[in-house]
Structure formats: C-alpha cells, structure tokens
C-alpha cells in the first residue's frame, strides 16, 4: 500500500478510505478525527467525532452539546481501531487538548500533526514525538510560520516586555489582543509565572474558555470581566486587559484610559505587520512552531515524506528538497493562514 492510498486530500479535507474517516474536515462528514479545538479544524455538524476529551469539551463550549451526534473521547497514547485502521492520539503542545494523530494500516504509518509547537507553554501538555519502531512514512505538517524570518523569541522575554511597559506607563491601559482559545490562557499563564498577581480583566468572549482551563487545573489567577459601572472612566488605568483583537477596534475598545494596543501573535515578528494593525507593543507569542522548530522536528522524525498542509508551504518544501527529503504541498482549502 502506498501512503496516498491510506490518506489523501479531498475537498472536505484529508480522507482515509480504508478507515472511512476524515481528519479535521472542513465540511460535515459521517466520521471526523479532530486534532484540536480551533474553529478552522474543529467544525460542528459531523455525525461522529473522535478527539481528546478536552477537544470535545472545547467544541461543546463553542458550539453547544449537540455539535455532533456521537462524541468519541480518545485517551492519549492508546491505540484504537476503525475498520482495521489503527489510530492513536499524541500531545501536540498547541492548545489544551491538542493532539497529533498516528494512522497505521498494513505497513504504512502516517502522522497528522495538526497544529503544534515546541516552545514552553504552562497551559497544555508539551509536544511529544510519536514513538514508532521505524521512521514514519509520512509526516503531515502545517507551515504557518515556515519562513526563515520567523524566529520566535523566548516567551518569558516577551512577557517581560509587557510588564516593563505596564510599569513605565502606570496611567495607561494595556490592551492585549489574544485569540480566545489557547493564546489567551497562555498569556495569562505566562503572566502568572512571571509573578504578576494582580487582577487581570478579560473580554466576555474569553470567559467560558478561561473557566474551562481553570476547571482542568490550569491556574490563571484572579480574572474579572472588563465591564464598566456607570460613570467610571479610568478604572482600567495601569491594568492589563485581554480581549479578542476585533473587540479593541470595535466600540468596546473606547472605554479604556489612553490605551496601549498590544497583540500577542507570531506575526508580530514583522514590524510592518504590527504597524499595519496599529499595534504599539507587539508581543511575539505563537501557538505554532517557528522556522527552526519546524526543521528540528522534521530532522528528528526523519520521515519518508513530508506533506505540507497550510501556510507557507513553498519555503518548507524548498528546504526539504535542499536536504533530500521528499516533500509536497497538499493545498488544503479552508484553513486560516493568518489567524493564529
């Protein structure tokens, strides 16, 4: 059997004919294996969803309990069978509940990594290389930050940058743009690790997921809604407020005292990118691998082939060619390249 017979791209996403399932499908399907809870990977409306318990919980929080008819929780590192195809879930280090999926059939082994990262994150289980007897045949990787310009600095340095600015401008509100799943909690976790123990204010869109993280034993400290009582105007001066980036440029963002706009994202590495978004304090914090981490991962796994899903596939494939590793783009449609 060749790998493309075991798994290949379709308009609905990656499909495994012998197992009759899709991985992270973009349209509703009878059986979906889902790597993690971000909206472009985990969509509602499938019949069966196989995913980690935490990913299923996150989907239920976002889409309601009826996001699928049959949720099927997958324990990490255990092998399950579907139509004779063996599948197992391994930590990906991306967000809470995120997993890579190992698919084995006949003598072919494929790892679908979903989104993953190698950097430190106090809010989710770290990436583990999937252990196999021999090198896997295919490693399917994302390429969100696959350009040599993306070198993520140490997360603790970025958080220190934020805290220094809070000290320097005690009369201003620091508005930190974060995506609701993963980035928000990571920023909170890193702030707490850095010893910041004051109340942090959050936008309503982050509340449910932050409570869920707390219920999973991830300490995020005292969080309060960033709402105003009547007549109050400067109550957030000197405070840190977290919210989705879209909220800060909406009317919601007008309530804060002389705000400094911050944005936590891997894209903040590029100055013009930060400037375009009107970000004054860029925080280079990413849920994804940077260039070096992508290369390290591929070198460690030494797969027979690399298939690249979404992102800057041309640069990663070029590097693989230069290093005599077979690689090809999957050109999957429906995954967001810019939203981290």
């Amino acid at each position: 059997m060749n790998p493309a017979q075991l798994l290949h791209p379709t308009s609905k996403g990656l499909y495994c004919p012998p197992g009759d399932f899709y991985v992270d499908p973009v349209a509703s399907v009878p059986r979906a294996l889902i790597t993690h809870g971000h909206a472009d990977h985990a969509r509602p409306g499938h019949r069966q969803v196989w995913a980690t318990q935490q990913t299923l919980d996150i989907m239920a929080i976002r889409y309601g309990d009826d996001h699928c008819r049959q949720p099927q929780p997958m324990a990490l590192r255990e092998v399950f069978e579907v139509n004779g195809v063996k599948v197992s879930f391994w930590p990906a280090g991306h967000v809470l509940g995120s997993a890579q999926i190992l698919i084995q059939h006949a003598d072919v082994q494929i790892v679908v990594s979903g989104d993953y990262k190698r950097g430190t994150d106090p809010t989710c289980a770290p990436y583990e290389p999937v252990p196999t007897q021999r090198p896997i045949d295919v490693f399917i990787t994302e390429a969100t930050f696959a350009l040599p310009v993306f070198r993520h600095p140490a997360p603790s340095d970025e958080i220190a940058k934020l805290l220094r600015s809070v000290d320097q401008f005690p009369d201003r509100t620091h508005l930190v743009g974060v995506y609701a799943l993963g980035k928000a909690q990571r920023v909170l976790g890193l702030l707490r690790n850095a010893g910041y123990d004051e109340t942090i204010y959050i936008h309503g869109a982050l509340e449910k997921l932050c409570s869920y993280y707390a219920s999973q034993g991830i300490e995020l400290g005292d969080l309060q809604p960033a709402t105003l009582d009547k007549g109050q105007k400067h109550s957030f001066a000197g405070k840190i407020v977290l919210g989705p980036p879209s909220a800060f440029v909406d009317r919601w963002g007008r309530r804060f005292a002389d705000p400094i706009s911050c944005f936590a994202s891997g894209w903040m590495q590029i100055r013009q990118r930060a400037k375009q978004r009107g970000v004054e304090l860029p925080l280079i914090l990413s849920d994804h691998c940077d260039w070096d981490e992508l290369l390290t991962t591929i070198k460690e796994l030494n797969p027979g082939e690399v298939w690249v899903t979404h992102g800057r596939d041309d640069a990663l494939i070029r590097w693989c060619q230069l290093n005599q590793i077979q690689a090809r783009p999957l050109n999957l449609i429906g995954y967001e390249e810019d939203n981290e």
Partner: protein
Amino acid sequence: MKRFAQLLDRLVLTPSRNAKLQLLCDYFAKTPDPDRGIALAALTGRLDIASVKPAMLRGLMAERMDEVLFGLSYDYVGDLAETIALVWDQQAVAMPQQAAVEPASLANVVGSLQMAGKTDALAILIRWLDQLDSSGRYALLKLVTGGLRIGVSARLAKLALADYGKVDVTEVEELWHGQEVPFLALFAWLSGNSPKPRQMAAAPFRPVMLANALSETDRQRLDANLYAAEWKWDGIRIQATAEAGVKRLYSRTGDDVGQAFPDLLEAMEFEGTLDGELLVARPELRDRLEVGSFGDLQQRLNRKTVSKKLRVSHPVFLRAYDLLDENGENLRNLSFLERRKRLERFVNPLEQSRFDISPLIEFQSWRELADNRENPPHVAIEGVMIKQWQSTYQPGRPKGPWFKWKRDPMLIDAVLMYAQRGHGKRSSYYSDYTFGVWTDEGILVPVGKAYFGFTDDELKQIDKFVRENTIERFGPVRSVTARKDFGLVFEVAFEGLNRSKRHKSGVAMRFPRISRLRWDKPPNEADTLASLENLIS
C-alpha cells in the same frame, strides 16, 4: 547601539506625531555626542557610508543561505534590513586574535566603516551582526545602508531638535545646511552650553516669511491703501539662492530640493536670494511664460532624477515675489516697497524662460480686491496675497504684515460609499470616507476621499451610520448603503479639480474635506459627475 535600536523600534510603531516628537526629543536629551548627531544624520538622510551598499548585503546573503529561501523571506517582509536582521544565523565562532570592536556606539560603527575598504567593511559588519540581537541588527543595517524609511521626515527631526532646545524651528532650519555631521555645535547650542553657532556656509537657507489667513474683521480694520496685493500661485514655495558659485533651491522648510530641478538650477546666473513660486510652464508657448496646471507640476515633484524628456515637456520656472539678498547685501530689513523695486531690477536681465515676476494687482478697496479674487485670470491662482508696503521680511508667521486670502473652496454634495477604519486614537471609528457622485446612467462613482472636517460628535454619528448600514466588509473597509432614496450625503469642500487617469471618475480633487453633514438631503439630490466636470476650467 542599543538605545538607537530601541528608538527605531519605537518610532516604527508609534502612529502619533506628538509621540514621535517626544521619543526623538528624549533620545537627543539622553544620548551623548557624537552618537545623537550621527543618529540625527541617519534620520535626515545626511549619513553616507560609502563602503557598504545594499547590493553587497544581498551578495553576502546569497553566500550564506539559499537564494530561494532568502527571496521568499524578502518578498514577505519587504525590507532588506529587516529581512537580514531576522534570518541572520549567528555563527559565534570564537576569534580572539581579531576580536571585533563592539558596535556599542554609533560613532564606533560609522568611524570603523568609513575608514575601512569594501572588503574589510563587510568583514567588520559580519562580526557585528553576529554579536547583536535581531533588533540591534536591524538598527545597524538601517544605519549603514541609509534611507531609514521609518516614518520620520527631516522636518519632524528638526521640530524635535527645536523642542529639545526650546527654540523656534526656523532657527534650526536657518543653521541646518551649514552644520557638519555629527552636529556638535548645534547640540552644544541647543543644550544651552554655548551660544548659537554662526552660519558659515555659502548659500545658506534663510527662514521664510509666512502669511496669516485674512479674516472678516481684519478687512474691516485694515486700511487697503497701506497694502500691496499679488496673486497667490498654486505652486511650490521656493527660495533660490546663489552665492560664490554655490547654487541651491530650498523648500519653505529649508530642505535642499535642487536635485529635482536641474533646469532651474542651471539658469541661476546671479548673486543673491530670490523668494518665489516654482511653477511648470506650458512648453508650446515660446514667447511667454504660461502656467500649467498643478497636475503638470506634480509630474516634477518627488523625483531624484529628471529625464531630459520631462525637462522639455514640463519645464519649471520661478515666479519671483521677493528679493532677500543681492550681491551679499541683506535686503530683509528694507521695506517691501524697496525690495519690490530692487526685485524688478534684479529679475529683468535673468533668463526669461526661467524667471519672471509675480505681478501686482491694482486695487483701491477691499471690495475691489474681492472681485479680483473671485475672478482670477488663471486656474493656477488660489487667491490673493496681501503685503504691507512698509513691512520688512521677518522669518516665521508674524501677525500683521502679510495675509493670504484664498478663494472660497468649491463645494459639492456627494454620497458616502465606503468607510475605512482610522488609525491610532481613531482605530475604533470608521473615519476615512470615500464619497461619490451620480453618472448620467444613475450609478455612483467615487470621486474622492476625506478624513477630516467634521467634529468629534459628527464622527460618532457617521460611525454609527456606517455600522448600521454596512453592506459588505473588505478588511478594514466597509461599503455602506448608498441608494437614490437612502444614504448619507456630505457637503465636500475642496480647492480644485484635475483630470486624472488614475481615478475611475476621471477627476481628482485637491485637498477635499467634509464641510457639512447633510442628513436632510436625499442622495438623489447629490451632485452629478457632469456638474463636477463643469468645474474643471
């Protein structure tokens, strides 16, 4: 180096002009000589390091990494210095025998590179790039390649210097061209440690005299007999000065713009300083100087080099209205009446295709002048200038001697079509508006864009309208409902209209702004493209 790197990082991301001034002012206050002067030279484009050129850096990168990967990176980032700063792989090979001088200070960087030949310069640069972090590498590369492009103009840097020294910016402008990098005398004066340096250079800039807008009460108060009047030409204010073989053209803020106008520069066969308006002449008229449109003039602006073809098709000339210096004699303390006489004598023998005199307007009363103002003989006239006969030439904008009395702006009613989110403080508002007028077929066609002219309260009202009537979104832009029977009509004021091939409507407005919100007016009563075209004379 670290402080300079931090300054650049902050400047790039600071949208507000005042905050940029503050950052620059703080930097000048906290940084010792000569580093602050070198930074100033870099910011104002006066630093030239001959031993390092962008092409060398590209060559270096081609040796160090795959060209395709570098190309993809450069395409994505769009800035050579930033790309190299990010992709640089530190090769921290210990080389104690040739330990590099740390690039700790800008003086160090500039000094070492200016003394080095091309090969040595590259080797030194590589060692520094290995030692610095990404932000330091960015600053170093920006410094050595020149052309920072970080949103700071020479004008802004001079304003920051004036803030730092608590002096008027015209004083800085006046001295600017005589000061050598790293500006030690200038900083010594600004920091209060020594008296103002004397202008030693030939053909320096002389700070210009500016006019105030003439108000209704001014007209009632002032005696028309004490004033001269001339047309206000819609060109570029230029100071043309030639002394001891040095010829320069300065903008009104003292920037040397001679490079863009070599044809005028060559014709400056005189000793003295003229103040006047740079205009483009219509080349087909050989017997007289006839002014072209502002659109013609725009062809000649912001160019580093001028082709021969353009010099022929768009020749520039100076329409002089003042003489500040003649053969080393300072005339600025003479009255306008005296200067005007001297000016006429001075310009008379000059090359006629390059110099003429701005004519005076005969008038007895303000009412008569008002008639002239409303019926100017040429489209390139945007109003009248009024100058007191007895006034001396004073730098800055003194209240009283000179007034400008612009024509009333043109007005049209246009319909709001698109709104874009603003920047900085306005980032939560839709504050940049594209508006259109009706074609004969009853379709709205965009004719301009404006982002000021309204009050804060009006901004809130428009923002609300945009959010409630959005049809489509394209990134930061929303299209809004604009039907014959429903939409928002703006009264738009503007200074003039040009034909434009770049705009779908075929017309381009000059200086458009929102003058009134016409909530009362249904969109089908807004203006038509045909009525707009009638305004083009």
